[in-house]
């Protein structure tokens, strides 16, 4: 069993075992579209929806899924939802859809979703699969928002600009992205290398805080454990 499989087996949580920051799954869209917060949120929510629906479907269909060809079936399930979402987004969020480009259809082969389906959804009840997928989807959204916010802040010195793109076009008449050229702070942050480097820094910061807190709980626990043992021996004496 590889490291990846071990990590995937673990219970999903928003921060401790984040699919992006720890397992490095589904990195491509995260790195590619996290140039601004709006893009990140858009893709994150889209991924969340596909993940939730695919996992529920996989869980419901688990009896029908041929185990030898199950990866193909998983991918087909994802692809159908993605196609639907793709059409829906073209209708409702065309400017955002244009900005996200190829990465909306590519949700259909997001490994983060695939791993959830393989590890959890196809062998558990649909409610369990749904909570697992939801957790995982939110964790994914969290990671992408973190990176996108950082890159937008460094890249153009704004946060959440062009927020109107997230409102469906049926509700708003003018939803074209703002034409005003933002004062480019460090425009290079929007290029691919900085995506990698900033994500690396986020991962390192996560490691640092995790180990810091782990150390704190460790020392507390250590004291607790010794005390506990003393009590145990005492009890044995009785």
């Amino acid at each position, binding site marked *: *069993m590889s490291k990846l499989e*071990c990590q995937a*087996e*673990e*219970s999903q949580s928003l921060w*401790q*075992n984040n699919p992006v920051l720890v397992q490095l799954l589904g990195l491509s869209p995260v790195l590619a579209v996290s140039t601004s917060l709006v893009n990140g949120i858009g893709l994150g929510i889209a991924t969340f929806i596909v993940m939730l629906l695919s996992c529920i479907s996989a869980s419901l269909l688990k009896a029908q899924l041929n185990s030898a060809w199950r990866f193909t079936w998983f991918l087909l399930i994802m692809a159908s939802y993605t196609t639907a979402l793709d059409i829906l987004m073209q209708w409702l969020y065309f400017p955002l859809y244009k900005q996200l480009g190829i990465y909306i259809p590519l949700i259909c082969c997001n490994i983060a979703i695939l791993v959830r389906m393989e590890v959890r959804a196809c062998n558990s009840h649909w409610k369990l699969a749904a909570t697992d997928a939801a957790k995982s989807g939110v964790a994914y959204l969290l990671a992408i928002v973190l990176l996108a916010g950082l890159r937008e802040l460094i890249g153009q010195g704004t946060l959440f600009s062009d927020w109107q793109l997230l409102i469906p076009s049926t509700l708003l008449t003018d939803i074209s992205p703002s034409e005003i050229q933002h004062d480019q702070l460090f425009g290079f942050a929007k290029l691919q290398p900085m995506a990698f480097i900033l994500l690396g820094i986020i991962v390192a910061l996560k490691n640092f805080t995790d180990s810091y807190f*782990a150390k704190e*709980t*460790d020392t*507390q*626990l*250590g004291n*607790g*454990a*010794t005390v506990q*043992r003393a009590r145990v021996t005492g009890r044995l004496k009785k």
Partner: protein
Amino acid sequence: MSIANKFTALSAWRHKLRAHATPGGIRPKAYKKTSLRSRIMPTPIPGLLILPLGQHQGTAAEALVSVGDRVLKYQTIAAAAQSNSVAVHAPTSGTIVAIENSPVARLANNLNESQLCIHLEPDGKDSATELYPESDYHLLDHSQLLQRIADAGICGMGGAGFPTRDKLQLSIDHKIDLLIINAVECEPYITADEALIRERAEAVVQGAEILLAATRASRCVIGIEDSKTDAITKLVAALKNSSVELMVIGTKYPAGGEKQLIQAVTGKEVPSGLHPADIGILLQNAGTAYAAYNAIILGQPCISRITTLTGLALQTPKNFETLLGIPISFLFELCGINESARLKTIIGGSMMGIEVSNTAVPVTKTTNCVIAGCAEEFPSPTDEHACIRCGFCATACPASLLPQQLLSYSKSSDHQQLQDHGLFDCIECGACAYVCPSKIPLVQYYRASKSKIKARQASHAQSARWQNRFQFHQFRIKKTADDTSNKKPRDTPAADIKPKLEDFSRDEARRKIADAVARVQTRKSKLIASTKNANSNNGNMPGVEE
């Protein structure tokens, strides 16, 4: 002899036999001149001689004497054990005062240890037993020759100390066709062989001829470094009427390494993991040849050797013909030691020798050099910098390894990569560590990794044995159960049992191992998960107190 004469003699020999190129090597600063200023000096007899029973590599000899016995010079006081062992003789007459553990320095094991030693108190009379010299070795047949060499207690004098008789026996089994006498002496301090050849070239050449006869090889070549001009001229003269050839090779360290010398002389490489005898070559040290000469022609067993006493802490460095068993502190005093300046005492050369803390350790058959070094020569090791992968070590490595890669794999304990990169081809010559600008003790890292890997392999072999035994046990239980139930005759041939056993072990063992690994993995991952979620459930935490 004038310089011009030396030069012509040298060039004449160079043209006759051309040395092959060897990879790597370094030219460390040599300190050879000072100890060569004087002739080889005999030593006086000290108050006590300490004679270790294992002066060689292999099984220790068995003491023939007991405390209080009086012995004569040349008398055998410890006999060689069954195999892979050499005898010990009394260097002078006197009384055995003790047989006990004393500190000794053993080059072969590269560590300081104490060992069973015979303590001999000389009576000063130096009265000897009768010797049986044989001035013409042709009169002895081959087995007699080997027997005499064995009786004389000769082992390799170059430092490794392998029993010479066993080595010769090995050569007979392998049909050796080339005998190489190693007079290269590339270590930067040692001059024992050079001094020996300079003064007793005829004896060395005769010794080489004896060894040639003992190995039944067709050729014999003496290899020597081109910097030893005096010794070469003496050898040229001594070799005039001899079939032994001379090869002058370039001066670099480690040109005198077994594999390097073979490559220089023949151009062949000893295949990895094999012995030179596999390609029909045998090496003997020049000092060993001299000892063979002593043993056959003079009939004397090995009771003394030529040892270099050098180092800046000595006032008059020189070569001694020391009796075995003399404590090195006694030799230091003979050379006028400046105790306050002495920082390090090294037995063997500065590159491959060992540092000893106790100067009471005796001279043994393998002690070719003793260095009393001062701070000027051996500055205390500076702090280790990071490896900058400059590649100086790779250039210096005589085995064409990549020491810098080996270092990084040693540090990360990547044993598979270490073996892939040829850790076990490393001869620990120390050339890499010498040139390293970061002052990394590379050889120490390799030694540590080697011993780790060996320990692991041993434990693997052990567990495999246990597993086999267990499986056989299971199989036997099953078989007896089958037998009793089926009431079959018990005389099934052994050939039938074997394949069944194999089938059984292959399937079962694989499945079991896979199961166990999976179990451990899940347990580990669960443990990780539980440590991560520690703050929620701090009640039942196994192993937190670590």
